[in-house]
């Protein structure tokens, strides 16, 4: 156990001290930071050129319009000449000229492109209300008459908010979970294969196998890689938490979060349960398979090839879930939710949707744990032979040879 830990620590420290790990971990944060930064800069630089000036000879009309509209209006420009000049210099998107002629209100928009749809709708709404008020005043209607004329039909949708949120939460949880498994698998399959394959056929393995057992060394290597994965997950969880805290204290985002509080809670609830165990066990079994593939290659340079079968298997599991998101009672889904390598995708899907009871979850989990133990034990028994052989057999020949020797 002591020597296993030494190997684990060495593998772990070597991986996390590498530049590739650093870039891999900070990559998403950099991407998010860059996206936010560029959006912010773009929004700031574009803000003036998106504004619209409002010009009118009737100050009450202009003031009434400005009072109703918010956001993209420029209140400083008050003359047509100034507005024209600003449009020409690309400081304004356009200007709106409001006037009243024979009790009819008219609005003319002048710009380099059509009015933004939101502003157009708001403007039409304003014009209609203002014109109606003018009309009522002109017609000298009583309050009762005005009320009667203002009567409109009612169309209202009644949505069960709770069920809607739950369904959305299921969909979001499912996607987060399978995507996490898939990304971790794709990333670490090649790292695990490379880590093992780089030792392949080297004499350092002979020195190591004269110091510790192959099984102990193999378990140590896998442990080291899993610790690296765990480190990355913890960093992302901390980063996510920090991002959430920042968003929570941001005036712009807080209303959005408050509005979706129940959805966020439901998603977190779906993720932070047995599904997290499935995620981790799924990563373990795929990492072991990748390590085995790394040990089977003929030489260290073939490590990238070694990860391919693992990646393909992972991709199959990932894409196979797509057609069954809304058909969780299909026999195919039920079967694969018990089959190691696929249960990590399919059982969480069923758990999120609540279509599987506790015993079934436990059985699937037990099968997965036993499969991991048997798989690790088999590879541990083969590991020394695989790592020390230096012949020129191909990947598949090695694989078949290994099975033949075993049986």
């Amino acid at each position, binding site marked *: 156990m002591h020597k296993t830990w030494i190997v684990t620590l060495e593998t772990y420290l070597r991986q996390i001290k590498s530049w590739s790990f650093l870039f891999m971990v900070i990559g998403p944060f950099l991407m998010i930071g860059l996206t936010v930064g560029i959006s912010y800069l773009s929004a700031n630089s574009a803000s003036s050129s998106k504004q619209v000036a409002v010009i009118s000879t009737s100050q009450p009309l202009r003031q009434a319009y400005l009072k109703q509209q918010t956001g993209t209006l420029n209140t400083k420009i008050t003359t047509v000449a100034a507005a024209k000049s600003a449009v020409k210099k690309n400081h304004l998107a356009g200007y709106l000229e409001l006037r009243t002629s024979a009790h009819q209100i008219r609005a003319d928009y002048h710009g380099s492109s059509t009015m933004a749809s939101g502003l157009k709708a708001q403007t039409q709404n304003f014009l209609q209300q203002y014109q109606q008020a003018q009309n009522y005043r002109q017609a000298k209607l009583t309050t009762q008459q005005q009320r009667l004329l203002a009567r409109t039909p009612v169309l209202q949708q009644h949505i069960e908010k709770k069920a809607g949120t739950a369904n959305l939460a299921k969909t979001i949880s499912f996607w987060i979970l399978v995507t996490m498994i898939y990304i971790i698998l794709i990333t670490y399959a090649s790292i695990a294969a490379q880590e093992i394959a780089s030792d392949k056929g080297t*004499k350092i393995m002979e*020195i190591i196998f004269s110091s510790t057992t192959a099984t102990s060394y193999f378990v140590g290597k896998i442990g080291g890689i899993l610790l690296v994965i765990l480190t990355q997950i913890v960093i992302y969880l901390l980063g996510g938490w920090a991002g959430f805290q920042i968003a929570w204290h941001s005036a712009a985002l807080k209303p959005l979060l408050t509005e979706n509080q129940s959805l966020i809670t439901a998603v977190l609830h779906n993720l932070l349960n047995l599904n997290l165990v499935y995620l981790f066990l799924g990563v373990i079994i795929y990492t072991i398979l990748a390590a085995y593939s790394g040990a089977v290659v003929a030489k260290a340079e073939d490590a990238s090839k070694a990860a391919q079968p693992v990646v393909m298997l992972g991709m199959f599991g990932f894409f196979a879930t797509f057609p069954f998101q809304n058909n969780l009672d299909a026999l195919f889904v039920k079967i694969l939710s018990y089959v190691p390598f696929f249960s990590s995708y399919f059982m969480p899907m069923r758990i999120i949707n609540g279509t599987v009871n506790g015993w079934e979850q436990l059985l699937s989990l037990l099968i997965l744990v036993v499969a991991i133990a048997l798989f690790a034990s088999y590879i541990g028994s083969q590991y020394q032979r695989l790592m020390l052989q230096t012949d020129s057999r191909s990947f598949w020949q090695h694989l078949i040879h290994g099975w033949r020797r075993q049986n």
Partner: protein
Amino acid sequence: MLSIQHISKQFGPVKALNDVSFEVPNGQILGLIGQNGAGKSTTFHSILNFIKYDGTIQWQGHPLSPADFDTIGYLPEERSLMTKLTIEQQIIYLARLKDQSARDIRPRIDDWLGRFAVKGTRKSRINDLSKGNQQKVQLICTLIHHPKLLILDEPFSGLDPVNADLLKQAILKARDDGAAIIFSSHDMENVSALCDQLVMLRKGDMVLHGTLGEVRNQFGKTELYVTTDWSATRLATLPSVDRVDQRQPGQYRLHLTDPAAGPAIFAELTQGHYIEEFSQQPPTLDEIFRLKVSEDHA
């Protein structure tokens, strides 16, 4: 004591080892010689349980098990270290796998680097070292935990005479500390200088086994070293002289078909007068090696 009894190993149609037996007592050095592919590395791999074999190998009276790993020092034939590590990291990592604590090993590193005259500091990266210095670091990794069983596969290959001497001293020191040592080499001079006993393998068969004296004497005192003013042609007329090789001007080595002819040759060559050199010896290890190899080719 390392005891190897009747071990055989077959790789497909190739017989790599065929009923090989020998023992290496504690505090003794055994040299394993043989051509490339004779079965030397296979013997080492069998001792270390890297491969399955027929026969029995025991260390201190029991089959070698993981519990014995910490007492073994193994130097493989080709050198291989973790090139991204520093010298210190590499030595400590491998020593920790031999159940040594970093705290114990760290203060010893500079002493070992000095002993092997490694060009580099403990913080130097393995990658930045010359091939010879990498080899010396690997030797340090093999020896620093004071192993009781030392297995060295071609330890002298690639070392210059000065460094080979440093290694010899280290091997002798380990022997004096009670280690059982087995090493392979193509350099018969090193084998002669170090070994208490030797084993020669040829295509998996053990063709020689014994102390250096025993092995040489098996071939009789057939080599006669003389310094004389006689010519090579005249020396060849002496009784039982099969071949005459000139070593230096006036210095010859005569190969005899019958070692018993020595006194007669002495009498004829000296004629009762002083002679600077007359030494009758068994063949050298190098000659025995060539002889045994040529037997197979004959």
